[in-house]
């Protein structure tokens, strides 16, 4: 009753760590009777926006959607509502923007310590770090 985290944002990228983050978010949501919002960002390098062959990449949105439906099943097993959202863009920037948007009413962001990004930092992934710095909502980092 006490935890006022009604809506939890869980960014997913298909890595093991993000699944761990999802499990943790499910656990917290069960305690506080909250709902989950899963956000999956398809990385689109900026160049594709102006590149004529950019459209070739767009059909891989299906991979992202599959990921979201898997997450939905996982949450439904534990009796938690999960709404999925797929976006194309830069992961760090879009996650932070989604979290900060007052329309979405996000109370907490749950992140895996690192995802699929290449080894930019030894312990914390670059996306996690970016979200951590830029989001105005509480961030839980799952290790």
């Amino acid at each position, binding site marked *: 009753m006490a935890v006022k985290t009604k809506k939890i944002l869980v960014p997913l990228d298909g890595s093991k760590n993000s699944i761990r983050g999802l*499990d943790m978010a499910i656990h917290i949501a069960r*305690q*506080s009777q909250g709902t989950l919002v899963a956000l999956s960002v398809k990385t689109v390098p900026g160049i594709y926006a102006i590149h004529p062959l950019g459209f070739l990449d767009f059909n891989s949105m299906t991979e992202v959607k599959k990921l979201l439906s898997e997450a939905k099943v996982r949450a439904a097993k534990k009796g938690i509502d999960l709404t999925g959202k797929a976006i194309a863009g830069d992961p760090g920037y879009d996650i932070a923007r989604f979290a900060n948007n007052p329309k979405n009413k996000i109370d907490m962001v749950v992140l895996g310590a690192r995802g699929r990004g290449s080894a930019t930092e030894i312990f914390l992934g670059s996306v996690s770090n970016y979200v951590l*710095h830029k989001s105005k909502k*509480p*961030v*839980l*980092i*799952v*290790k």
Partner: protein
Amino acid sequence: MTNSFKKILVPIDGSIYSEKCLERACELVDAFNSNLILIYVVEKSLPINLLDRKEYLNMIRKFGTKILEKANEKLSKKGITAKIFLKEGNIVNEIEKIVKKEKCDLVVVGNKGLGSVSRFLLGSVSNKISQSSSCSVLIVK
């Protein structure tokens, strides 16, 4: 599973941000029935060593115990008992040590503290903890 937070560590420094953390930690304790550990670290950095350190350290120690007592009072009003530590040394190192020693599951830190030269949005200590700690970290904003 490692999903339940059995032990929650809250480092405090007397700032508004750390008070916010404490409230958030209380909520978690209510929800998860976990143990709470409070820690205040007296910083011993190089410039302090060069100055008149005895008097200065005494002042900080007094300040630290005062803050810990205050926090403890607040907690006992809510019916929560907490373990209390007062440590001396590098802030991040000491917090890490406690995390390992007590096998904490979660560290709750504010996004800024008392550090004067902090990063634009995230304090230096919070940043270091989130980078290097071996357990989960909740950054309260």
